């Protein structure tokens, strides 16, 4: 708390991000140890976790006050105007301190207490067990020791980092290992080695004594570059994308030319194409594949995990997806803390590698709406928590570091919380029967890749459809389950009544056997049809929305009569951080 100088500022304005007419809400800003909280005059609360803050900017003083712009890692951007510069300065300094911690121990996860005891906590951590997962895949078997393989095929996905070959170095042991990998596959004599980097980058690495496998030195390998750019290119690509999509009064042409020049969708397509190459090698050619990039924890993780997702429907379930993240990302040392900037560190190590993976998965869910047990909200929630530092899963940069931090004793695992809330993350259209054993073969024609509005504009309410088909179907699915129960209940009650009546008939002659249609019976036919469950009306509430939100014209100021308060939007994922 020593960083907090001002805990409460009144009369703060929250500006509409896209409004050209400075539309705003007035309210009170609170600063807590973990969150920044804004409560507007309609009592609507906006919570921002300090760890989610990517940058805080204090703009030049204006007549109405001092502007403070906060950009978050979950793509929320808020623009406050604080009446007094002094207050603004205090908040600014506090946030700078609070959003950049120097030590892991100061992160939220180490103080977060969901009121569970130690054994519950431990159980949570044991929920996803990798040894269990390897057993599920059917390894170790006579061909494989504990490593990584695919269950249904004799072929396997293997991963490593680049060889330190330089221009001519060789390593016989490495060559033998690869040969052993190749031999472990009884079906196919050759194996693929995929270098996920652009060829140019790999060649440049040779000068530093690193590089790629020389096909002459390795027997039976087929070498392939797939051209995914490095973390620095990806970081600036996302930055450009966000600049474009955050522009006020954006034109269609500027949007698309910005989308193009950011290169973002090109990178997404490259990752997807690489995963498809991997899946095809395994499925069509029955060849094992060794995947690497430079270090083997960024592009390699993307390609291996996506490849697994294409090949094995287990990973398309909620639990399976958690296992996949544990296996290909956490345990293989994706440097979450550096890539997500959990601590005050080198900004050049930050990169949206995992976000890209989630986006690829989203693209798959768009092409195969019935193949995934989970929905988009699940992906968004995971994205939320790779940055939240609320749970221990994504802290640290490798397994070793995580053990040193004693995460399993000092923090909680995210997965049990997500599982507990499973209902929210279920895809109502999921059909495990029809697609369970099929391999997904996505189409990567460019027109299939779209801007992921629900990720990058998840907090920009006005840009989204005002009614969500998905939510309605999700609720209806839940309602159907309840209705089935109701029917069972009613049927058993009716049965009981009937039995009672038959008993009655046996004991005494029934009066109304003479006149079967009693007057009460007739009136009861007029019973009003009841709606049974309170259908979640909020979800169907139509947002008339307001035209001023949408900035149809520069005449807005003339039209700026008071708008009715907007009804809650169905979109926007419920957040555990709140």
């Amino acid at each position, binding site marked *: 708390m020593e960083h907090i100088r001002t805990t409460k500022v009144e009369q703060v304005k929250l500006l509409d991000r896209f409004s050209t007419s400075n539309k705003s809400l007035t309210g009170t800003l609170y600063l807590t140890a973990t969150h920044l909280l804004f409560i507007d005059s309609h009592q609507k609360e906006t919570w921002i976790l300090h760890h989610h803050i990517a940058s805080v900017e204090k703009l030049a003083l204006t007549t109405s006050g001092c502007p403070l712009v906060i950009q978050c890692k979950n793509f929320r951007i808020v623009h406050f105007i604080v009446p007094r510069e002094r207050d603004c300065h205090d908040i600014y300094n506090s946030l700078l301190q609070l959003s950049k911690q120097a030590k892991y121990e100061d992160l939220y996860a180490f103080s977060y207490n969901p009121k569970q005891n130690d054994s519950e906590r431990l159980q949570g951590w044991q929920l996803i067990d990798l040894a269990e997962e390897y057993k599920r895949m059917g390894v170790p078997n006579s061909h494989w020791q504990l490593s990584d393989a695919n269950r249904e095929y004799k072929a396997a996905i293997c991963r490593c980092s680049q060889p330190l070959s330089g221009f001519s170095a060789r390593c016989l042991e490495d060559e033998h290992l690869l040969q052993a990998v190749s031999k472990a596959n009884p079906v196919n004599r050759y194996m693929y080695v995929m270098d996920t980097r652009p060829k140019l980058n790999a060649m440049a690495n040779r000068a530093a004594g690193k590089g790629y496998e020389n096909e002459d030195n390795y027997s039976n390998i087929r070498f392939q570059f797939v051209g995914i750019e490095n973390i620095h290119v990806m970081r600036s690509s996302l930055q450009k994308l966000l600049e474009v999509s955050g522009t006020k009064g954006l034109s269609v042409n*500027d949007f698309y030319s910005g989308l193009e020049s950011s290169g973002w*969708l090109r990178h997404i397509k490259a990752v997807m194409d690489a995963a498809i190459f991997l899946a095809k090698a395994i499925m069509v050619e029955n060849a094992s594949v060794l995947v690497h990039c430079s270090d083997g924890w960024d592009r390699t993780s993307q390609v291996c995990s996506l490849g697994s997702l294409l090949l094995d429907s287990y990973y398309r379930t909620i639990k399976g997806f958690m296992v996949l993240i544990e296996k290909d990302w956490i345990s293989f040392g994706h440097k979450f803390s550096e890539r997500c900037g959990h601590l005050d560190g080198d900004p050049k190590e930050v990169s949206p590698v995992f976000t890209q993976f989630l986006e690829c998965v989203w693209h798959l869910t768009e092409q195969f709406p019935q193949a995934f047990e989970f929905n988009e909200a699940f992906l968004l929630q995971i994205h939320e928590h790779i940055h939240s530092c609320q749970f221990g899963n994504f802290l640290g940069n490798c397994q070793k570091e995580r053990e040193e931090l004693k995460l399993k004793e000092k923090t909680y695992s995210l997965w049990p919380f997500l599982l507990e809330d499973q209902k929210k993350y279920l895809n109502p259209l999921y059909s495990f029967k029809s697609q369970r054993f099929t391999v997904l073969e996505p189409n990567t024609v460019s027109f299939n890749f779209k801007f992921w509005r629900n990720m990058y504009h998840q907090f920009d309410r006005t840009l989204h459809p005002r009614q969500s088909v998905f939510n309605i179907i999700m609720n209806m699915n839940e309602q159907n389950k309840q209705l089935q129960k109701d029917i069972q209940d009613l049927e058993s009650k*009716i049965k009981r009544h009937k039995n009672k*009546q038959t008993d009655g008939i046996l004991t005494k002659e029934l009066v109304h056997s003479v006149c079967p249609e009693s007057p009460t019976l007739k009136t009861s036919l007029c019973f009003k049809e009841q709606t*049974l469950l309170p259908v979640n009306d909020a979800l169907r509430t139509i947002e008339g929305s307001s035209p001023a939100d949408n900035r149809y014209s520069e005449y807005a100021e003339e*039209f700026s009569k008071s708008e009715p308060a907007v009804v809650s939007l169905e979109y926007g994922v419920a957040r555990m951080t709140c």
Partner: protein
Amino acid sequence: MEFAELIKTPRVDNVVLHRPFYPAVEGTLCLTGHHLILSSRQDNTEELWLLHSNIDAIDKRFVGSLGTIIIKCKDFRIIQLDIPGMEECLNIASSIEALSTLDSITLMYPFFYRPMFEVIEDGWHSFLPEQEFELYSSATSEWRLSYVNKEFAVCPSYPPIVIVPKSVDDEALRKVATFRHGGRFPVLSYYHKKNGMVIMRSGQPLTGTNGRRCKEDEKLINATLRAGKRGYIIDTRSLNVAQQARAKGGGFEQEAHYPQWRRIHKSIERYHILQESLIKFVEACNEQTHNMDRWLSKLEASNWLTHIKEILTTACLAAQCIDREGASVLIHGTEGIDSTLQVTSLAQIILEPRSRTIRGFEALTEREWLQAGHPFQQRCAQSAYCNSKQKWEAPVFLLFLDCVWQILRQFPCSFEFNEHFLIMLFEHAYASQFGTFLGNNESERCKLKLQQKTMSLWSWVNRPNELSKFTNPLFEANNLVIWPSVAPQSLQLWEGIFLRWNRTSKYLDEAYEEMVNIIEYNKELQAKVNILRRQLAELETEDGMQESP
């Protein structure tokens, strides 16, 4: 003229049909006066029936004696026919070319089509102006039906019956007609029951360079204003274009003569600019090999979504004037038959819940497009594959449908119809067995005696069988005004139209079916629970009676 003269080779065997995502089909190709038919010998279900009028362009090429004809359709489908024999191939190609470009409307298929279904309701009488007027007359007495255009003499592109302010007589209307482009004097397009504000539409005023004015015109539009109220004139051209129009005798309303009106210029493109946009857009969507950068830059260069945004923005502005400002609106561009109608009809989709129902949308199409004189025959003569570069060809109606689709995407429960309904209207506007979209205005349709000689599209659509295909299972009447987002991030490529032939939609279709199943199942369960509740209640009352006789 006999079709037989145009059909040099009526039948060729061993023709192979190639369609993307389908296996090739070998069969017999037959040409009739209006159709190209390919039926496979193995299996009679594999038949292709293609209306000649749906053919936009054809290419032919030869390898040895094997000819190939590539047929590009107005609905953007591309198919390929391999025809053995050079002479047969040339004959077929020239026949198709002749039959798909017949210049006489009365030779078109609707004049020959005999329906195989029972007509329950004659669509030609489904949406009579008198009936439409009744919907308003209960709410206001300030408007009347005028028969001044009975003989199409005052305005050739207007229907015989129009709605005008009660206080303006037919004589004044005749004078106003001479002051407005094409005789299109201001008429009522929409009456907003909530506050009595209206949308009117017209052609541009013929002010010319010397600022001509017309007292009757001023009186007519002022008659729609409440005391002390102002109105808005939305000109669908930029100020520059409107000013240039004066040199050709056109122009815009001068502030001095219309002091109660505020003029807003909103530029919406027209004519060949739209046609070129469509051509580029479809070309981009059809190319499977574009890398990401090329695809995005082609998408941008086509400007299609820019046009969508312009049109939607203007419609929202008009709706905003009516609903939020409580001001009436007059909308026109130059002729008042293209962008004007896009704006007036979309404003109604936003404002008026009825226009979001199936019947209401049909009525809207009838009122704001067909009777309002949108020249379908000219605008839809060619589609995305043609390079005739005729000024009058333009996808104005398709843009409107695309805008409706964008709103439907944003409010998926507020429309009674689904995407297939819009796609169906697009198809029939370009090629159809029905007479509805023939001709350029009511006057032409009258002369062609379409009502007597052809079948109305609505007669076919409004049968329960067909309606079930076009009904949105999520529909729940929504009486509110719906404001769409027009941000570029919110506008989407209409995949159902533009990617329809370029990818398989198997998984998406299956998911849609599953969604429908869940909804149907929900209804079933609800009904069952209600029945059981009733039963239980009955049993309980009976028990009660038994216990207390």
